[in-house]
């Protein structure tokens, strides 16, 4: 059996085509993988943002409960020994300024 010798130019063409095909395939796979990887990263970042937003909301709610007026009132009276002035002890800054004028 006599083997046919492939011309050099044709061989180069085949090799180049194969290389190009392989490169395209590699790029496509890389592109798809990268797309998924970025998608995963974006999802994780979004979930983190959501978690942090929820945490901010929780902290705001806790702050509100800590600043509840009955709690503040209790601390003012019991810990700081403050008390409300009687009606006849009150004078208003605006009225004082009027008198000064």
């Amino acid at each position, binding site marked *: 059996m006599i083997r046919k010798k492939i011309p050099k130019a044709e061989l180069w063409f085949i090799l180049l085509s194969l290389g190009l095909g392989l490169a395209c395939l590699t790029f496509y796979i890389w592109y798809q993988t990268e797309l998924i990887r970025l*998608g995963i990263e974006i999802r994780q970042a979004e979930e983190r943002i959501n978690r942090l937003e929820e945490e901010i909301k929780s902290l705001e709610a806790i702050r509100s409960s800590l600043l509840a007026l009955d709690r503040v009132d209790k601390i003012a009276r019991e810990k700081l020994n403050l008390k409300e002035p009687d009606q006849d002890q009150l004078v208003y800054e605006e009225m004082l300024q009027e008198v000064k004028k």
Partner: protein
Amino acid sequence: MTNSPERVEKRAIITACGVALWFVLVAARLVQLQVFKHRELKSEAIEQNRYIRDVWPTRGTITDRHGKLLARSLPFPSLFLAPEANESRESLSRKIKQVQQIIPLSAKEIQRVKNRVENGDRFIWIKRKIPWEYLEKLKQAEIPGVFLQTETKRFYPYGSYLAHVLGAVDIDDQGLGGIEYKYNQLLQGKKGRVLVRRDALRRKYDLEVLEPAIPGNDLVLTIDSTIQYIAERELERAVDENQASWGTVIVSHPPTGEILAMASYPDYDPNYYPPADPSAQINRAIQENFEPGSAFKIITAAAALESGKVNLRRIYDCSAGYVSIGGLAIRDHKRFNLLTFPEVFIHSSNVGTIQVAMELGEYYFFEMIRKFRFGEKTGIDLPGEEAGILRPPSSWTVHTLPHISVGYEISVTAVQLLQALNVLANRGDLVPPRVVRAINGPDGNKPASTPPSCRVLAAETAAYMIDAIFSKVVEEGTGTAARVLGFPAAGKTGTAQKFDPVTKSYSSSRHRAVFLGFIPVDNPRISIIVVIDEPKAGKYYGGDVAAPVFREIASRVLLYLRELPRVRAGKWVVASHQAQITREDNR
């Protein structure tokens, strides 16, 4: 051994046949997978790589008029069991026991889970909205078939504060009372759907919105949380001191009808709904019908003045101390002599008031009561409002007109009485009450609809009633305990005997004390109604029990609103210029 051409050809044919057979086999397998098993495998592939998930919008927040947070939904973990097909009961019991070692489960909860397992359910809640401290332990335990899902739970940072207005929600975040129920549709938003795509490791890498979730609207109430706190504190104190059954206070801004505070006591904490005592859920301000007693004389006086039938110079003889109507005697709370028209109301004489009412006639008086919108709901944006009871004149007896003129044989709610009082404060205009100020949604912020106001009294009539009668009630009449130093007020006391259904007569030992008024008289910033039911500590008159509550609330609220006294009084102490005191202000 030589490779003859025949031998080579034979080998080539065998190899070609082998390769062809291999191709045929591969092709057959492909046909089998892609044609005959196409539907089944496609759905499996889709199931593996993507799924559709419901997206539940977060329930809207509720804030007071200054943006202070009153209710918010926060994420909480929920625990569920997903039994495998044909999983044994022993295995499931073991899993539940493992969970029980981490998080306490009641016998009722365990029984519920067991019942669901018996039914063959594939998704069973074990415990919903559990405290966060259990989360780590549950994650570490890694119990197969037991999973965590994040849900939201309603949180009321101020606890029992404003409970009756806010209401509460059930385990599925559906409103059950108050604003939460009334505005449930707006608050809960609309569920959406997303398509989640996953990679081979089941990591989510893409979300495609199929149906966008519409977040719930945020509500801004007319309530001022500081005024609400003052009202609740003073109400609680009054109910406890007077050993009363219950009490209610409403504070409103007369020109707009905005409710600044609405408190009922006893109360409950909506974070732990439902309360142990179901009666604590009743919003007494709008859901309690009662006979107003002398507080209703405001309407009698208005009707008399508006009718023009009453001679203001007439002197009413109240010296008998009682008046007999159809055999029934109605008495005064103390002996009077001769009283002028304003004095009849300033001193709250029943005898004088009945004489005034008898001049009006049934139909005119009834029409006037209707003009003040008694016997119908005020339309306040809260659920479960009572309309009160006002019978038509066709069913009135000979006692009805005199009885109604002094606040009996008619039932009203506290909010109806306050609405009527605000007619005076607004110089004749009736402005319906409301508790929602604005609705903030995805489409932007819009003010809540305001109910239309209407004229009920002539401005002159209202002005006369304020100046000649109801400001004098506070200055020198039955309501002197409501006086606030430096601020002229107008108001009316009311003390009603309660009807005893057992004896079918009015009890001489059970009363209801009422005071309603507005302050300052010249430019009313606030109007307040105080109702204290069945005080048992000795005092029971509206002027003794309810009027001091008005004074305490009004004095503190006016200070908070930085309202300057009309009359200079007392010593001089500098109060802060700023509504919110800062460190610099305190120097």
